């Protein structure tokens, strides 16, 4: 569209030059020319004005100095950082263990749910009941019930470590969702692929394993990554069990000093961990989409 014949392009934006280089800037420029630079200016100015007004309101409010002291005190930030960061390391470890278990367990549940034939009926029912149950209970309740309830039973050989039960709660709750993500992936693979695999003499299980699942998982990688970002934050919920992870450490600091800056420290840590994953998810989905549309040609 950025050819010399485009009479609607704003002056200065184009000229009768060489064909546009497909850089991001070039793309933006082309789109701006298309939608009208005027609109972009209005959007930009209104955003700046809105943020400016909001900032001004906060900064000029009477209680701002107090809030600033309590939440954004550099000294407290530095002081609370080591404990909060130490707690965050526990968050990271719990997250990693939970994520691996979720990806494996949920796949198992999804596979069971998509098995065919009357022989698997009881297993299928079990999978459906599990999914319905754990998607229906708030994660916080699962954590509280398992974390406080099971150790209270005092059964020999059953662990009482709150970290164990916290991670278990995360795995059970998230696997229910993740199993549904996998199932959507399995159902997105055309039935003809199954027929084709069976016709080669593969068993139902082999057809799933070699023909269906590789395609199914690839179809849902963006959704799985999205769940990963979500889990990264929800790990903090296990702090209700008294586990000394980042949020708990921040609370302890607050209780001791009546200064809330430790929460900002925890916020910064969670953001530092989740933003790269979120960006990666976006990048991956975009690349995947591009590859697919190319394959269609």
């Amino acid at each position, binding site marked *: 569209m950025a050819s010399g014949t485009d009479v609607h392009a704003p002056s200065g934006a184009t000229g009768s030059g060489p064909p546009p280089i497909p850089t991001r800037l070039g793309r933006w420029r082309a789109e701006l020319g298309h939608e009208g630079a005027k609109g972009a200016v209005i959007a930009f100015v209104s955003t700046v004005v809105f943020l400016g007004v909001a900032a001004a309101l906060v900064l000029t409010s009477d209680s701002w100095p107090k809030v600033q002291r309590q939440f954004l005190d550099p000294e407290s930030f530095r002081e609370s950082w080591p404990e909060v960061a130490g707690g965050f390391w526990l968050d990271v470890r719990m997250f990693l263990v939970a994520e691996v278990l979720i990806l494996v367990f949920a796949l198992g549940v999804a596979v069971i749910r998509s098995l065919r034939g009357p022989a698997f009926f009881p297993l299928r029912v079990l999978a459906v009941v599990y999914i319905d149950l754990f998607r229906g209970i708030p994660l916080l309740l699962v954590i509280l019930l398992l974390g406080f309830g099971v150790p209270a039973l005092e059964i020999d050989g059953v662990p009482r470590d709150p970290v164990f039960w916290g991670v278990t709660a995360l795995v059970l709750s998230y696997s229910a969702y993740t199993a549904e993500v996998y199932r959507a992936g399995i159902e997105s693979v055309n039935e003809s692929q199954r027929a084709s695999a069976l016709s080669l003499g593969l068993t139902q299980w082999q057809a799933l394993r070699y023909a269906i699942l590789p395609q199914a998982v690839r179809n849902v990688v963006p959704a799985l990554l999205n769940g990963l970002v979500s889990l990264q934050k929800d790990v903090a919920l296990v702090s209700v069990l008294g586990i000394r992870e980042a949020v708990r450490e921040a609370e302890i600091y607050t209780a001791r000093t009546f200064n809330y800056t430790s929460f900002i420290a925890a916020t910064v840590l969670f953001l530092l961990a989740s933003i790269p994953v979120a960006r990666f998810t976006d990048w991956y989905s975009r690349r995947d989409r591009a590859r697919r549309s190319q*394959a269609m040609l």
Partner: protein
Amino acid sequence: MKGTGEVPDPVADPIGEPLPDTLAEPLGEPLADPAGAPAGEPAAGVPRLVLDGVEKSFGPNRVLRGIDLSVSAHEVVCLIGPSGCGKSTILRCINLLERIDAGRIVFEGVDIAGPGVNANRVRRRMGIVFQAFNLFPHMTVLDNVTLGPRRAQHQSRREAEARAMELLERFGLADQAREYPDRLSGGQQQRAAIVRSLIGDPELLLLDEVTSALDPELVGEVLSVIRDLAHGGMTMVLATHEMGFARDVAGHIYFLHEGRVLESGPPEQLLRHPRQERTRQFLRRVIEAGRL
């Protein structure tokens, strides 16, 4: 294509078990009358496949209403008829991808639609090629072709790939062996699918409108492959819209209408002197569309 594996294969032959042995496999109880061809059918030799009163419904929709047909060894049988007449369903039933509601499907003397039949074993002795190729998009052509031998027949990768390359070469696909299906033309994909169905040396090859999804200029290459297979003695059942091709390769043509065999006969007779008014109407439309 030597087809049935009677000729000893220099390379390891996956289906190379002696015939009595394969029959001894628990496919099911052998029938008292293996050559149970319906009366009046032209059964030259012992039929390799017999369908006897096969019925199939999808919900309230009665797709097959009692199909009788018979295929001798090395015979090519074509199923023709308007869309929805049940051609594809017959092939899917023979491959046990659909369970039939009534009737018998007798393959090599065994009723494979009966109880206690190991469907995987039956399918290993047949090949089926689908209209939409159905190659696995996440695998290279070579992996597509060797999946069956490696996983269902537990051949080593080397063994399976050697045999696969030999076949791919014969069908002009050696250069595409390491490519993914979406890099291939439709004709190449369908030829790859045919190779995939042949690698187990099937005793029967089912072809379900294998040229219907192809661009017109690609139809020829696939048909010529099938013609070669026919000349090589492969036993085949084709559902097809290519009447000219059916006339050339078929030993026997069945015209299907609303889930029944309306008439059948040798190509010359059925295509030139159809007895039934419906057959005449159908053929007239085909001729008008320039397909015969």
